[in-house]
C-alpha cells in the first residue's frame, strides 16, 4: 500500500485501505502473543448517503505533516490515559468511492475496558481535532464540503 507518510502507529495512505489486512499485519509485527487480551477496532467506511442526499464520491484532503503530528499527539494522550500495548491509526486521503474504508483505529490492551474506551476516545479525538476535510460529490455531479463532524458520544 502506498503511504503518504508513516510512523509505527500512524499511516496516511493514498491507496485502498484494507482494514483487516492492516490489522493482521500490524498485530503480527508489533504485538507479542499472550501479552494482550483485548483488541478494540473501529473502521469508518464511506456511505452512499449523507444528510439525506445520495453521495456518489468524495475527496479527502489533509494537511501533510500536521495531520500525522496531530494523530500522534492524540495517540500519546490516549497512551497516558489508558494502559495500551499498541495503537494503530490508518487514514485514507484522495478520491474515494462509496464502500471504501476511510479510517481504521485499533487499540490493543491487556483488558477490555481500556481497549474499548481508548478506541472510542481516539475516534472522537480524530474526528474533532485531526486536519482532514471531506468534499462530497452528489448524484447531480455537484460538490459540497462537509461542514462539521457530529459528536459521536451523543448521536
Amino acid at each position: 500500500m502506498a503511504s503518504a507518510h508513516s510512523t509505527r502507529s500512524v499511516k496516511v495512505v493514498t491507496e485502498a485501505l484494507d482494514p483487516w489486512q492492516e490489522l493482521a499485519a500490524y498485530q503480527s509485527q508489533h504485538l507479542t502473543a499472550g501479552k494482550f487480551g483485548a483488541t478494540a477496532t473501529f473502521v469508518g467506511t464511506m456511505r452512499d448517503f449523507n444528510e439525506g442526499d445520495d453521495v456518489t464520491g468524495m475527496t479527502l484532503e489533509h494537511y501533510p505533516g500536521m495531520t500525522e503530528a496531530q494523530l500522534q499527539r492524540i495517540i500519546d494522550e490516549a497512551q497516558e490515559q489508558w494502559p495500551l500495548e499498541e495503537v494503530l491509526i490508518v487514514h485514507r486521503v484522495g478520491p474515494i468511492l462509496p464502500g471504501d474504508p476511510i479510517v481504521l483505529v485499533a487499540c490493543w490492551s491487556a483488558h477490555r475496558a481500556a481497549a474499548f474506551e481508548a478506541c472510542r476516545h481516539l475516534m472522537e479525538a480524530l474526528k474533532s481535532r485531526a486536519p482532514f476535510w471531506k468534499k462530497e460529490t452528489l448524484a447531480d455531479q455537484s460538490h459540497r464540503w462537509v461542514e462539521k463532524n457530529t459528536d459521536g458520544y451523543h448521536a
Partner: protein
Amino acid sequence: MAIKVKCFASMREYLDLSEREIGIDGISTVADVWRAVAGDKPMPDNTLCAVNQSQANAAFSVSSGDEVAFFPPVTGG
C-alpha cells in the same frame, strides 16, 4: 526570511490560495497574516489557525520562518 501561508479545503477556495510566502514586514500575529493574504475578506467565525502545525489563535505571535495555516473545521474519520 518570510512566512509560509497555507490554506486548506473550503478556505483554499474562499481565498483562492493554496500556498504562498509573504514578507515579515508589519506582521506580528496570526491576524496580521490573515489580513496580508485575505485583504478585506473577513475571517469566517469557525476558522481554525495553526502555527508550525500546532493549533493557534488569531492573537498568536508569528516570526520569520513560521508556517501559518488557515482551514475550516475538520471533517475526517
